[in-house]
């Protein structure tokens, strides 16, 4: 915590005229301002040309059908369309991205990351293959999330125990489950991915080379391992997916309304007054709890 006040004395060895870092950044910023451009380089994963099956992840240990990638792409497209529709219905906005126009998407339409991921898998392997597999392994769950489970949410948040249990059971942690067959109850479609480990092609993106492998069991994606990552270290990253109602029901079942503080997107001073945090403060005071 520096409370240093600038000295009135002329320092014997003054700071460089302007910190080189500041000078460099100022120069770059002013150059951008002069050209009036925020210089948008192409974003990874944005508006890639659609090329399904062009980069099929190689099956390393299992004799996967060669049509898997195209199949994945088709399923993901469908899932993306459903997710986009779900969001549009939820927010009352238009479904900007449609199955008829899968190859490009306007920025505001990127609401459904499933859609973005579907686009990615259609064109590249590597990092995006991880998420492609992710989506494929849980496509059935996604469908239910946008439909049945979402409608359960209001009930779940009022802590109806039976409902919470039902949600947990049906939409339980499909990706981390050691017994994927326990999630079969929610699967509307039969498993189409053969068991095995699928190695994605090494893919160069803006951060470097990425290569992952996906492990399927019982038709479900059960693990994703990163074989190469830009830092050069082999790091294992697994992305888990569940539905928000499921997560909430877990929290409710744990009586986690009993929290000490609440994190959320930035409050304004005014909205803070109505925020959950202040409610907790008031509850503490009313309960005679110090602090």
């Amino acid at each position, binding site marked *: 915590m520096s409370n240093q006040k600038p000295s009135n004395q002329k320092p014997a060895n003054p700071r460089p005229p302007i910190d080189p870092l500041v000078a460099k950044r100022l120069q770059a910023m002013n150059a951008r*301002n002069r050209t009036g451009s925020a210089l948008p380089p192409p974003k990874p994963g944005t508006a890639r040309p659609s090329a399904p099956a062009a980069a099929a992840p190689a099956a390393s240990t299992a004799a996967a059908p060669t049509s898997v990638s195209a199949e994945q792409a088709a399923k993901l497209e469908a899932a993306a369309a459903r997710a986009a529709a779900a969001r549009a219905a939820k927010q009352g906005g238009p479904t900007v991205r449609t199955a008829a126009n899968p190859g490009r998407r306007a920025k505001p339409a*990127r609401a459904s990351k499933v859609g973005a991921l579907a686009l990615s898998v259609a064109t590249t392997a590597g990092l995006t293959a991880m998420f492609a597999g992710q989506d494929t392994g849980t496509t059935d769950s996604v469908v239910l*999330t946008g439909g049945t489970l979402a409608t359960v949410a209001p009930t779940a948040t009022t802590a109806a125990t039976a409902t919470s249990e039902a949600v947990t059971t049906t939409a339980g942690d499909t990706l981390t489950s050691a017994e994927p067959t326990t999630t079969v109850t929610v699967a509307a479609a039969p498993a189409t991915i053969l068991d095995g480990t699928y190695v994605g092609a090494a893919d160069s993106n803006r951060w470097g080379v990425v290569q992952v492998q996906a492990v399927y069991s019982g038709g479900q994606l059960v693990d994703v391992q990163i074989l190469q990552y830009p830092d050069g270290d082999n790091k294992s990253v697994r992305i888990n997916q569940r539905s928000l109602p499921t997560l*909430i029901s*877990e929290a409710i079942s744990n009586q986690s309304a009993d*929290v000490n503080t609440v994190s959320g997107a930035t409050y304004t001073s005014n909205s803070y007054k109505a925020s959950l945090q202040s409610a907790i403060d008031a509850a503490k005071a009313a309960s005679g709890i110090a602090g």
Partner: protein
Amino acid sequence: MALHHVEAVMGTSISIDIVDSHDHAVIDELVAWFREVDEVFSPYKEHSPISRIGRGEIGPGDPALTDDVLEVLDRCERLIAETDGVFDVWNLPSPNGTRFDPCGYVKGWSVERARDLLVERGIHDYCINAGGDIAVGGRNHDGGVWRVGVRNPDDREGLAFVLAGDEPLGVATSGSYERGAHIVDPRDGLPVTDLASVTVVGPSLAEADAFATTIYVMGVEGLAWLARFPEYGACAITHADEVFTTDRFEAFLVH
């Protein structure tokens, strides 16, 4: 033996809870610190050092370049490289009319520095909540670990999940639900609203805050990007109510 204080400063409200001290002087120190940060780093103040730097009004030996300012600039500089320009405080629409706005880093950083001050004063049981960005350490008033609820982006009164850990934690959430589309992608200048919210948890709130914004702009792919910072976990919630988490995040999740 406990302290509680809420201060409106830095354009938000900062709630401070200290369990293992009743010396109000430390609250005064924290408040003075946050006010100093407001004076130095606010892009809303025309003559703040940050606004002056953004306008290029700095000369030889300028006092605007304090050690604190240089520390923030240095970390923000490395974040530009680490995020490939996704987190770039020099390329954002700033309230002062320039394109230099380090607020996205400064809030979390200032709370992290406040945490350091508490520890220097021998205080280990505390919770600082700066407008939803949180630093906790030690034990709460009941002797348990701090339980940090994270808001449901669909329901301002509801929680999505609860986080807790044995070590001091920083928890930051980025989203568009509170203030509309205010997160901008520096690479094309467009507002980003793809995800409902992103929460990052890890040892430093300064880092967690920057990472949450970064992942929010990157999208779900940002969860894999976070692998390079193994001490941090993240959760992304989509508008379709899908929840994506990293394994590290799951370790903090109260089930």
